[in-house]
């Protein structure tokens, strides 16, 4: 049948990635490179699934988040709808798969994001000066402090995260030391407007 026709060529194409193969039978192979179904073409982020941009993400941050999702440190709070959607996607990843994915994500070119959030960027700039300590003046991130780059991330996603940190839906796990830091910081953002303002400012930081 048609569905079996391509198997051989895929076995070759996918060589190197672990595929559960049955001894006697030909079975359709699969791998763990399914991220773009949700995260969009070349990991550009997909608002339709609320899955953020992966293209351009720092290796260390990507690995940490995948490990956190896998360990149930992130994406478990019942109100964290989007995180809950992501967690099972990481639950079964092996360390080898994560290494392979990090390579793959690294091959995607960063492309400018669409601006969807409206806010007062000037007011946001003032607030951001405190964020800059960790995330960098240009929102470029700081590996030493474990704070990821913010510029160039989908703005709707940044808004969700700031809300989730504020509500304790992300970052309240006892083992999530980085998340806890961020949870403490986000308390300075009083309400939705403030969140929109700071995200509008992050939008101006652009990215090369």
């Amino acid at each position: 049948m048609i569905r079996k026709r391509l198997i051989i060529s895929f076995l070759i194409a996918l060589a190197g990635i672990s595929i559960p193969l049955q001894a006697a039978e030909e079975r359709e192979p699969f791998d763990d490179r399914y991220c773009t179904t949700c995260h969009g073409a070349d990991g550009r982020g997909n608002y339709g699934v609320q899955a953020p941009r992966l293209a351009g993400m720092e290796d260390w941050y990507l690995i940490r988040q995948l490990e956190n999702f896998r360990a149930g440190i992130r994406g478990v709070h019942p109100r964290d709808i989007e995180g809950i959607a992501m967690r099972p996607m990481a639950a079964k990843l092996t360390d080898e798969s994560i290494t392979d994915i990090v390579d793959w994500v690294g091959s995607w070119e960063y492309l400018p994001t669409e601006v969807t959030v409206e806010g007062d960027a000037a007011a946001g700039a003032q607030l951001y000066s405190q964020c800059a300590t960790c995330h960098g003046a240009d929102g470029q991130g700081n590996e030493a402090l474990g704070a990821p780059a913010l510029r160039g991330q989908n703005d709707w996603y940044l808004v969700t995260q700031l809300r989730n940190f504020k509500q304790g839906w992300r970052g309240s796990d006892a083992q999530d030391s980085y998340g806890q830091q961020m949870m403490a910081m986000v308390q300075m953002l009083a309400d939705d407007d403030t969140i929109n303002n700071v995200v509008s400012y992050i939008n101006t930081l652009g990215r090369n």
Partner: protein
Amino acid sequence: MTRLVTRREFLNLLGATGGTAAALKAGTALGLLPATRSAKALDLLALGSNNKKVAILGGGLSGLTVAHELGKRGYDCTVLEASHRCGGRIFTVRHGDLIDEIGNRQYCEFDDEPHMYFNAGAARIPTSHKQLLAYCKELEIELEVFVGENNNAYMQDDGSFDGKPVRANDYKTNIRGFLSEMLAKSMSAQQMDEPFTDEEAENLLGLIRSFGDLREGDLYQGSTRTGYASGGYLTHGVQKDMLAFRDLLAGPMARTAMTAYEGDYGPCLLQPKGGMDNIIAGFLRKVGEQVKYRAMVASIQVNNDGVNVAYDQDGERHQLEVDYCFNCIPTHLTVGLDHNFPGDYVKALKYVRRGEAYKAAFQAKERFWEKEDIYGGITRMNNRSSEIWYPPHGIHKEKGVVLGAYDFGGGMYHTMMSQEERIEAHLRDGEKVHPNYRNLVEKPVTIAWHRMNHMLGCAARWRRSFRTWTTEEEEMYHTLQAPVNGRHYVIGDQMSMHSAWMESAVLSAHWAMEDLDQRVRAELA
């Protein structure tokens, strides 16, 4: 004297007894038969020597419909399908098949026999779905009857009848009896005089009495319509006891029993022999050569004289330049592609959400339902597994595949469970109906459509409100239906107002091709 009541007179009569609402309802019920939509042949211009290239994004039913019809007219079509198989939500699971649910991949271990399959997506064809049936005929896809309603199947509700399963027949006969008794008693002779002639009144009462099998004094005292408690062939039949009306009223199951098989869910439906994906196989016999598998569309750039599509296959990016593009990729996944669509189009794409349908099935080691006089049909449970479907095919063979759960969505209840939790939930629910269920079934498969690779959902949800479309929603719908630059068409049941039906997918493709045809005719004129 008898004479025929005119339609208007009848409406007046109903208006007098039941108020305008009743009259309005009667208006549509009586409203002269709805014009039967006949399967119309598509009148599309054959291209002759005018070479035109078409990219079809997604090998769903609507995409293959376009490939087939435009192919016949001389268009040069390429179907790009991200998955290892065509058909999308038409998915029949058989021995050895991969279920590509992200995070929960499975291989189906059913016995390798033609009747051992599970229609994990579309499973029933209403006989009024003419366009789809016309393709079944054209493509020589053998059909057989699918049993929807089966009076011998069960109703089960923990809150009624001590949780014991009750035959649908007992539910329905008793509900009819009780309702008829109330209706007959509330219709005093006086009231009846008003709008009806004596003869009409007598006929109406007669109808009510026979609807509920009432005895003298308009009493419901049970009925042999439920079948006998014992005897009935060589000895006198012994009537079954009446059911307690309180139990019938306790939950939603009475309503389910009386209304579950209306409209598109009608009692008698059709299915292709051997699996729903035989429809897809039928189309592929015509256009299979044009399909590229594991070809995932990444970019759609519409310009003035064509569309540039980029897709990933075998770890490489490929380009395809075409004149026209038909896209059945689910809208929320199209949002994540690299595209240059106009703003209002993107707004509409982003607006559509998806239902969370979920199904599970087991291989049954023996056809235990046949021993309980059940041949096809659906058991209904007031629990999350909700339904058990008995296969109408493979009658009297050793084994069969039963559907063990059908959750239409409205939440991620089953989707969020692990495979083990899902299976245990269905075994627990199912053994309330068939006590030995746990031991009778094996080799489960579960399909959470919200996690199926390249689908991530079932029905497109255009409405935020359950009942009505807002004006804004209608506007967005028409925005998305109209082609970008006359070149890029969104198709699929998502581009219909009756989503989650194959007929709608076919009709959306027809609409788009007819629109294209007008443009092509104008251009070539």
